[in-house]
């Protein structure tokens, strides 16, 4: 790591808030995924995201951060576990990250939120049918064997970085291609939901989808512009590129729907936003705004078409993690091979040792490097995800029983259900529904039983 520089207040303030923004993305994702899902599995869907926050955060503190950002070991495949032991405290004046003037803990937490959401992204592929215990095992294993080392390879100066100097500003390769490939692997192992694709499995709550997309968009500014770590012109570039690319992607996706289905949808607009955010992620700090608009448009159009692939090939990537994150990630990653521009950001050469893209006189070199890095991560993630899921399924079991799936995974895995607003609006009349009023939501058990009458002053 480079020699320390003095503490920097505004950089630190910016990274602190960026971290909070990225953390918010996972609940946002839970809402986005939850709304896209059928109502009988909304809680399980959200639970997979919330459990990632819980599990991965702790893993990250104790060994994940070291594996990703510790000193090279194993030939650069991962970082030394002893680099940042979770039991040691890093609060000395000099415990700053590189040349940013930011305390180690702030950078550590910022990156923690990346690990959390990357794992959560995968869950969208396996809705309504994955045993919760199986999911936790998978999250633990995949983060340890894939995300932590891959992050080291792409961002921590590891082997892939040394070999290919790939450009990945905020995580097109390390996050989205990575999660997308894993999603495909685990979806293949778990197989299709009962009734898919014959039956309708429409989103149960589209406003949630849109709100989730809005929260993700909001948080993504921390994800992308925060990844500059410092506050400077490039931070502003990453920020505006994130905004305009995403806006263009919304238009692109909606356009495809309008032409193909004759109807633009809100789910489409929301999905387009995510596709744009994904595609601009690796490129936001390395290209010009006009190129970002173009990228967003392309990503919106291509992803809108890509989500139909699962029907052609017959794999049930339930909420289109592959069609949006895998495809979108690849688009953004390759885009840099064409539009990366050292004039926009000199760090491309100085810091990453990469080159201008094809359209900026850099030739095809960088394009090749981008493809190589992305391909390696794709294989790495897919193979291990598939293997892990397969083993889990053969041992503790990963897929729920048919009966459980028909009754609904929320009830069978979590013993709760998303809503109890039975017939809200009681006939549009506003009062709560008869069943809800009837209070036949079951009668309480033991704890209630043993409850003695309490004195009520008011009673």
């Amino acid at each position, binding site marked *: 790591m480079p020699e320390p520089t003095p503490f920097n207040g505004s950089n630190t303030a910016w990274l602190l808030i960026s971290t909070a923004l990225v953390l918010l993305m996972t609940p946002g994702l839970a809402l986005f995924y939850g709304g896209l899902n059928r109502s009988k599995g909304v809680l399980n869907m959200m639970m997979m995201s919330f459990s990632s926050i819980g599990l991965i955060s702790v893993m990250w503190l104790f060994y994940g951060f070291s594996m990703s950002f510790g000193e090279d070991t194993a030939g650069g495949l991962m970082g030394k576990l002893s680099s940042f032991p979770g039991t040691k405290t890093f609060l000395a004046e000099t415990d700053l990250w590189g040349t940013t003037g930011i305390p180690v803990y702030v950078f550590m937490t910022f990156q923690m939120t990346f690990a959390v959401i990357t794992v959560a992204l995968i869950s969208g592929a396996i809705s309504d049918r994955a045993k919760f215990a199986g999911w936790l095992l998978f999250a633990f294993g995949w983060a340890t064997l894939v995300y932590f080392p891959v992050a080291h390879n792409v961002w921590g100066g590891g082997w892939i970085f040394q070999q290919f100097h790939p450009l990945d500003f905020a995580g097109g390769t390390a996050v989205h291609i990575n999660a997308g490939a894993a999603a495909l692997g685990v979806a293949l192992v778990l197989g299709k939901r009962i009734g898919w694709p014959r039956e*309708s499995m*429409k989103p149960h709550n589209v406003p949630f989808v849109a709100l989730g997309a809005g929260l993700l968009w909001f948080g993504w500014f921390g994800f992308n512009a925060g990844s500059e770590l410092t506050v400077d012109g490039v931070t502003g570039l990453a920020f505006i590129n994130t905004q305009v690319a995403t806006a263009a992607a919304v238009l692109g996706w909606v356009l495809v729907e309008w032409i193909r289905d004759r*109807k633009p949808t809100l*789910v489409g607009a929301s*999905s387009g936003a995510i596709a744009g955010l994904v595609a601009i992620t690796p490129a936001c700090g390395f290209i010009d705004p006009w190129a970002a608009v173009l990228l967003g448009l392309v990503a919106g159009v291509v992803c809108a078409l890509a989500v139909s692939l699962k029907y052609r090939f017959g794999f049930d990537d339930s909420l289109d993690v592959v069609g949006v994150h895998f495809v979108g990630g690849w688009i953004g990653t390759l885009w840099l091979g064409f539009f990366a521009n050292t004039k926009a950001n000199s760090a491309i050469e100085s810091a990453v040792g990469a080159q201008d893209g094809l359209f900026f006189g850099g030739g095809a070199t960088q394009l090749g490097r981008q493809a190589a890095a992305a391909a390696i991560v794709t294989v790495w993630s897919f193979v291990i995800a598939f293997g892990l899921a397969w083993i889990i399924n053969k041992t503790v079991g990963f897929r729920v029983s048919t009966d459980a799936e028909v009754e609904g995974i929320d009830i069978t895995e979590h013993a709760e259900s998303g809503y109890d607003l039975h017939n809200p609006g009681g006939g549009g009349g506003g009062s709560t529904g008869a069943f809800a009023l009837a209070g036949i939501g079951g009668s309480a058990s033991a704890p209630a039983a043993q409850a003695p009458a309490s004195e009520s002053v008011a009673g």
Partner: protein
Amino acid sequence: MKLVTAVIKPYQLDAVKEALHALGVAGLTVSEVQGYGRQKGHTEVYRGAEYTVEFVPKIRVEIVTDELDFEKVVDAIVTAARTGKIGDGKVWVTSVDEVIRVRTGERGLDAL
């Protein structure tokens, strides 16, 4: 006593209620149902996949009335619910052996 059951278009409920009111019908019970028949449903799209929704939302109206009036009730409903478009719905009549008002225990006509 007769039970008149009508399955109508939701938007016509107001008209039907007025018509019955005019007839002096004291009460009725409505519920939500989904209909399947000549009237076709609609199509929805979700990320490129199309779904045909065959069922159409309808309102079921139930009125317990006496032997004599029920024809009037039926006519009132049919007239008020009619738009002339497919899907206007059905009305059917069945016989009721007995009707009781819970609050008072009154039976027969007094219970209405």
